[in-house]
């Protein structure tokens, strides 16, 4: 993801998403998030991987349809198995209706699964066996956790402790993939790699 990608998303999709009250990302500005995430994680001696998902439109050209910012080498959320993982800090999938009606993409892909797959593959390739985690934004209400459940992620029980470096009380909205779940989710998409 470059500054141009962030600018495009803010200018072209941001105004379409802003009126959708159920979207957790309706107030996100990727042009601000991008430098913010890099600089905050550098202060914590970690690196971010910002990624863009492109999809083929009906006319054969490619359109930005998903954005994410991952944190590399983040503490694995399951404290019973201490180690490192990747953490999906921010991720946005373009609204399917907007893609179809305004950008000529008749068959939008299942973007949440693809965005999570990016984190799993990067984690596997970094030697973390696919372990990854995320926090479902409170602004996403009751719907967002269900999206992650449907994608196959594990819910970290509300009573579970979090790694000390996470510096946060567990509000029951943390999700993760262990090695087995990550492998199963990655394998399910192998045919399309």
């Amino acid at each position, binding site marked *: *993801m*470059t*500054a*141009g*990608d*962030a*600018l*495009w998303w803010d*200018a*072209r999709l941001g105004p379409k998403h802003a009126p959708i009250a159920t979207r*957790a*990302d309706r*107030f*996100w*500005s990727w*042009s*601000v*998030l*991008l*430098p*913010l995430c*890099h*600089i*905050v994680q*550098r*202060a*914590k001696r970690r*690196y971010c*991987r*910002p*990624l*863009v998902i*492109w999809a*083929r*439109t009906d*006319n*054969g*050209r*490619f*359109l930005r349809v998903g954005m994410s910012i991952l*944190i*590399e080498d983040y503490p694995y959320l399951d404290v019973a198995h201490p180690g490192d993982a990747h953490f999906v*800090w*921010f991720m946005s999938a373009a609204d399917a209706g907007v893609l179809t009606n305004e*950008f000529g993409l008749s068959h939008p892909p299942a973007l949440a699964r693809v965005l999570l797959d990016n984190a799993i*593959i*990067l984690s596997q*390739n*970094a030697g973390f066996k696919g372990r990854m985690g995320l*926090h479902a*934004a*409170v*602004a*996403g209400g009751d719907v967002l956790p269900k999206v992650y459940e449907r994608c196959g992620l594990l819910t970290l029980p509300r009573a579970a402790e979090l790694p000390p470096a*996470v*510096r*946060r009380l567990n*509000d029951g*909205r*943390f999700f993760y993939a262990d090695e087995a779940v990550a492998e199963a989710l990655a394998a399910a998409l192998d045919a399309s790699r």
Partner: protein
Amino acid sequence: MSEFMRLDAKAPATLGAVVEAVTRLSTLSEAKILELVSAGRIAELFPFKPANGQAIPADTVAEDELAEASALRLSRKQRDALIESSLPAAANKKSRAFSKG
């Protein structure tokens, strides 16, 4: 950090303000920052404002214009390039040539 000094000219932002903002933000959990961003409150904590007038890229590109991101861990050099590409392009500053004769 000097790249992050390209702030809104009307904002009372200085390098000190940026350092202060980053220091404050780095004490917060990622989940807390996610909450603040989702509530539309990040501008209160991070004084960065992209410069106006940047050209918006085209909606679509041809397949051969796409560069596939590496699925492997990046080298330090690649990471630095990634961070650099996250910043808006700076206006080209012409350097003055030597006078002739």
